């Protein structure tokens, strides 16, 4: 190593920085020391110093006026895209601009003011409205990615508002469009190039006009809880309350009284917006749940957009009471688990060739980015990220759900509660791979025989419910599953069975999913190849400990149950005791091999029943 390369770097690389005075003191001392002893570097320093002095320019003082003139022209063309002046004054200017337009009724109140403006993922901005009241809550929904937020006192916050509820009686949500167009200038591929501009087109829902006549509804049995409704809403709510049994209503009121007053009020407003019979059924269902679950359910429902909450209540009201309670219980647990939970509003229903109605769910909004227009003027933008969201899809028995990937290409996690049978409410959560185009779910599919219904394993496998079916289409990736773990008799083990198909794709039997139990969630997680999920049945089962033993030498162990499986060689010596892990498929049984400490398939005709190993 030469003297000019001490420490793994070239001193010569830093001579120019040294002469400019931009090195830290330690490095500067090191370079100075080297220059004192190295003639060639000293000569180089002399040359660089001479160069630096030779090309000096006068230090500029101000940005040329012509630049500001161009900035002015830009802002005149898009006044809100680049708001001039201080943050607050820009917002106030936007408020004044807005109040003269459609939003007059919304912003005419003294406290109403603009609350925030943000740069979203593509540099578009988001416009939020604060209620201006004592609560100082922002009128934002959980899908708005907020960069900055200014409260009524002028304090600014930054962060991701993922669970802020709207306590304000107006809607102000941008509807997502099919996506903006992007144009790039400068020909740079750098993400920091500063040369990419994004334009978006969209519309914004008109604010809901203040009701013509407002009445205050006092809820019997819930002191202090009042909610302002229009006369027709109040009438509807009263009809809904009257539709519920008295005992259920008493229980329901108790739940309301334990809730945050704002959320309780929002719950009543929600119930006032759905048909009275549905509201009555919801009250009955909620009253059957433990108080904590009931509170979580109502709070979660009140936080959903009205259309989603209404659709959720509408779907559940068509289920038998016990099944509805089980489904709502599962939904309450989802809400309690935190994170963003949304309800998928059902779309078109088509009758399939198999006679089953398919309900379409479109996840188009996921990941979309859109601007918000007021009149012709884009004032804001919002982005919605699919990642981390859970979307709840509730489909009735006898129907199947068809979920279509959104244009953004991102899938949320999909919660698919079983809606009938002894395990109603059991909720698989599916994480489709990005390349999947469709996901199908049937909570109660038709089964051809007892084998499909899970009667396998000579009594050592006990199905805990009829199967449900899941299909993931168009993907070669792996599908993630999270399913609840069910407590079974201590002498048994719990697990999930997934369908195994023969070479022709026909049902051949069940094999046990290689699941991992997650103590924190009480759920089992496993992956399945999407290609294996063509209408695949799944079901929860309890496994009785069972053992088999080979009575002769030469028993082989295989990688699978069919003829295509690899032969792993001899399973073990004569009289080896194998633990049965999953039901028999064809002539093979899936076992744990104590000789190798691994799993594999052995021929059933090579073994016989046995007791546990001694």
């Amino acid at each position, binding site marked *: 190593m030469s003297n000019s390369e001490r420490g793994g770097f070239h001193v010569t*690389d830093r001579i120019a920085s040294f002469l400019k005075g931009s090195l830290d003191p330690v490095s500067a001392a090191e370079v100075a020391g080297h220059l004192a002893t190295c003639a060639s570097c000293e000569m180089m320093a002399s040359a660089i110093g001479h160069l630096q002095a030779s090309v000096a320019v006068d230090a500029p003082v101000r940005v040329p006026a012509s630049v500001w003139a161009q900035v002015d022209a830009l802002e005149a063309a898009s006044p809100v895209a680049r708001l001039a002046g201080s943050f607050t004054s820009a917002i106030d200017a936007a408020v004044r601009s807005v109040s003269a337009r459609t939003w007059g009724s919304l912003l005419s109140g003294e406290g109403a003011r603009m609350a925030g403006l943000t740069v979203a993922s593509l540099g578009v901005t988001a416009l939020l409205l604060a209620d201006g009241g004592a609560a100082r809550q922002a009128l934002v929904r959980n899908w708005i990615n907020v960069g900055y937020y200014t409260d009524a006192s002028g304090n600014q916050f930054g962060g991701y508002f993922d669970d802020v509820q709207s306590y304000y009686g107006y809607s102000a949500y941008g509807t997502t469009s099919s996506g903006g167009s992007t144009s790039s200038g400068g020909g740079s591929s750098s993400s*920091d190039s500063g040369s990419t501009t994004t334009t978006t087109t969209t519309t914004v829902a008109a604010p809901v006009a203040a009701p013509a006549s407002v009445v205050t509804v006092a809820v019997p049995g819930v002191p202090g809880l009042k909610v302002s409704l229009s006369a027709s809403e109040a009438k509807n709510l009263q009809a809904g309350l009257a539709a519920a049994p008295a005992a259920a209503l008493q229980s329901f009121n108790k739940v309301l009284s334990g809730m945050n007053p704002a959320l309780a009020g929002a719950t009543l407003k929600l119930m006032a917006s759905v048909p009275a019979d549905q509201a009555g059924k919801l009250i009955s269902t909620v009253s059957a749940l433990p108080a904590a679950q009931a509170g979580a359910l109502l709070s979660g429902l009140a936080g959903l957009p009205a259309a989603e909450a209404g659709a959720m209540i509408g779907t559940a009201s068509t289920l038998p009471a016990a099944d509805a309670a089980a489904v709502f219980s599962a939904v309450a647990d989802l809400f309690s688990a935190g994170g963003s939970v949304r309800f998928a509003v059902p779309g078109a229903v088509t009758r399939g060739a198999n006679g089953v109605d398919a309900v379409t769910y479109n996840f188009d909004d996921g990941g979309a980015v859109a601007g918000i227009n007021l009149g012709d003027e884009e004032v804001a933008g919002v982005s919605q990220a699919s990642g981390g969201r859970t979307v709840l899809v509730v489909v009735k028995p006898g129907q199947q759900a068809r979920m279509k990937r959104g244009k953004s290409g991102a899938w949320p996690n999909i919660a698919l509660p079983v809606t009938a049978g002894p395990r109603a409410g059991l909720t698989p959560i599916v994480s489709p791979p990005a390349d999947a185009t469709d996901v199908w779910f049937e909570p109660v599919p038709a089964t051809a025989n007892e084998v499909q219904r899970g009667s396998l394993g000579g009594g050592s496998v006990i199905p805990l419910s009829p199967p449900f079916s899941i299909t993931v289409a168009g993907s070669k990736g792996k599908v993630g599953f999270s399913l609840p773990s069910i407590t079974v008799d201590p002498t048994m083990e719990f697990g999930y069975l997934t369908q195994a198909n023969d070479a022709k794709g026909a049902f051949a039997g069940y094999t046990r999913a290689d699941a991992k139990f997650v103590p924190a969630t009480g759920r089992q997680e496993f992956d399945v190849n999407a290609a294996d999920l063509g209408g695949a049945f799944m079901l929860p089962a309890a496994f009785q400990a069972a053992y088999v033993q080979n009575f002769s030498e030469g028993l082989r162990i295989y990688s699978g149950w069919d003829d295509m499986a690899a032969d792993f060689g001899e399973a073990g010596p004569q009289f080896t005791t194998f633990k049965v892990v999953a039901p028999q498929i064809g002539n093979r049984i899936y076992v744990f091999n104590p000789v190798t400490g691994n799993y594999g398939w052995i021929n059933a005709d090579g073994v016989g029943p046995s007791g546990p190993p001694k």
Partner: protein
Amino acid sequence: MDLTTRFRGIADVVDGDSDDATLLSHVGRGHRDALELLYRRHGGSILRFLRQVCGSPELAEEVLQETLLAVWKGASRFRAQSSAQTWIFEIARRQAHTVMRRKRLEMVSDDALGDVSDSDLGPADLAIASATRDALNLALSKLSLPHREVIVLALIEGLPYGEVARITGVPVGTVRSRLNHARLAMRKLLDEAEMGPNAD
């Protein structure tokens, strides 16, 4: 609700003590004072660079204005993957190349050059150190564009070689190699000037 970051009023924090990245973030939100401050800090370096790259003070002024406008428009997308100064240099260089391409000015690509031995560089530095200011500027102007760029960024502005590599879009090794060749070329140009028709 995650409110992990709290901000003071922005008008209060646009001052001379703010670092470059902070100033850029304010530029991104429309604060003209922040761009003025950035310009005061880095305008001289950028202008010096552009004059050498463009070869004319008038064209350098024109590109400088394009650069400032691009910084104004793109500041909100600065992600601090490099220093703010490097980011601005990247924009300036890109604007310069765009303008020069538009005006069909010299856009010399880097020729394949052989290795340079250390023994050649000492005389080159001696020639540079003893040249007059005018001779140096003339020699600089006659260098190829890639050589001018690395001379200005690495030697005159003193940017770390890694930053120079980012700005010019080449590996650090290429930056070193270009610098060595540029020094040799400077010596050659200075020698030719000394022995030219007006030399004694």
